[in-house]
């Protein structure tokens, strides 16, 4: 299967907190891939990394033939992202919002009207300020903005959250159409109905890694991988330093208990104390809600 995206051992940080801790993922073209996983597993971060919005600290990545860390400027216009927020301007109407999205993508203006028609926002609904629309209607506006752009890769973060049955139906229809026209869809979702009804494939995320994301490929095939070369070069440079005074030896750490399938997180606390307690700063407040 042709691949739209491939990650190998992708690591991404927010400050000192690892959003992605070695993610491996293959995404085939034309499939609807669902990311499952608990809150905080890294689903949102993976979607942002696919969009080229989250630079990778380490690992290899390829999205639509481009390296998302180095070639982000070329990659981003080909990606559509629908996150927890809709990305709309509340004071403007639905039509103005979609028209702006179309102009920002340097596409012909007519696309805006078509997209709004497709999602069923016409007439009065299209011309009141978005602030007056319901949550479901706002989602539809955001969906229309995506539709108007028609990017080859769609990334959606819990798109069904808060939608009633009618809107869910519309969303599913649209996504299936996208896939049938050769677009690729990756969505993060908690919703089991989605997994059954919509997805062609599902993977699970946990602890910043994807557990079963790799597709089997015949030996020797596979697209060329972009290395985060520029990033690496930028981050190298500790060689050639003058000698520093010796650091104290690592303190003896207590033996870790036998690790079952779920490793004991309490291990970390022993190390935590031994390293002087800095680790508790590793989770900044603003990332606690990142899925």
């Amino acid at each position: 299967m042709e691949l739209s995206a491939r990650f190998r051992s992708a690591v991404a940080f927010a400050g000192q907190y690892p959003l992605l801790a070695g993610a491996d993922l293959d995404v085939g073209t034309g499939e609807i891939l669902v990311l499952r996983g608990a809150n905080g597993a890294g689903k949102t971060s993976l979607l942002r990394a696919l969009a080229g919005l989250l630079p990778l600290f380490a690992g290899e990545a390829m999205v639509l033939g481009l390296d998302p860390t180095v070639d982000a400027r070329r990659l981003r216009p080909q990606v559509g992202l629908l996150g927890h927020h809709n990305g709309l301007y509340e004071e403007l109407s639905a039509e103005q919002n979609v028209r702006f999205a179309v102009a920002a993508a340097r596409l012909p203006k007519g696309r805006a009207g078509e997209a709004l028609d497709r999602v069923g926002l016409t007439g009065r609904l299209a011309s009141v300020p978005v602030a007056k629309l319901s949550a479901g209607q706002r989602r539809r506006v955001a969906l229309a903005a995506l539709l108007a752009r028609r990017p080859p890769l769609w990334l959606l973060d819990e798109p069904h959250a808060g939608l009633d049955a009618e809107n869910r139906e519309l969303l599913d229809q649209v996504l299936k159409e996208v896939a049938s026209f050769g677009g690729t869809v990756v969505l993060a979702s908690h919703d089991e109905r989605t997994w059954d009804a919509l997805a062609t494939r599902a993977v699970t995320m946990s602890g910043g890694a994807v557990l079963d994301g790799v597709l089997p490929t015949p030996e020797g095939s596979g697209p060329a991988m972009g290395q985060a070369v520029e990033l690496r070069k930028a981050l190298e440079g500790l060689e050639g330093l003058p000698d520093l005074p010796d650091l104290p030896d690592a303190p003896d750490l207590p033996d870790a208990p036998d690790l079952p399938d779920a490793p004991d997180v309490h291990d970390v606390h022993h190390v935590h104390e031994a390293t002087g307690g800095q680790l508790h700063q590793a989770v900044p407040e603003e990332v606690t809600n990142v899925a």
Partner: protein
Amino acid sequence: MWRDAWVIAGKDLRIEARSKVALNQLGPYAIVVLLIFGFAFDQDRPLLTQAAPGLFWVGVVFSGVLAVQRSLGIESADGALDNLRLSRLEPAGIFLGKTVAVALQLVVLELLLAFGVVVLFHSELAGAGLLLASGLVSALGVAAAGVAYATVSSGLRARETLLPLLLVPVLAPIVLSATEAWRSALGLSAADGWRWLGLLSCFTAIYVAGGVVCFGSLMEET
């Protein structure tokens, strides 16, 4: 780049036209600032007239900080900044568009403040050319520096308090030059106001050029 700037400026101004924040909130705020100056100086009329140019520009700075916070706030309110990053708009164009939109709002606020200064501090406006020119140029300079710094701080914690700390020292040269230009125009000092306008234009040009060059990096997540 210019086309992108036009798209962004148009969008921002349309939002302002609908929401009228600058008119309904920043304008009264600027007047209130002038009133507080009046109270603080205990209605010492000669002092207020002498100090009017400086107080005017301080009022512009205070309003300017809020104006740029608002300009970036509409992007971060619903996560629209991500959409800007994903669009085909050039960052330099986004910067210029936002800067022009804020500058236009600042010009309106300046007119309001000038009116306030005449009424409350009994200034007599003279040397209109110099006043006008320095008003326009500094609106652009304040907007440029403000949009750049507001973008940086919009993604950070404690952004509301960080922005003034970052921005106000940067605006100091503009305030300085503009105040001197106005004092010269109003006959309060013997200095050559047009030379100060020249210095003001230099700083404005530096801030605008700096923003155009750097905005791409500033827009990335911090």
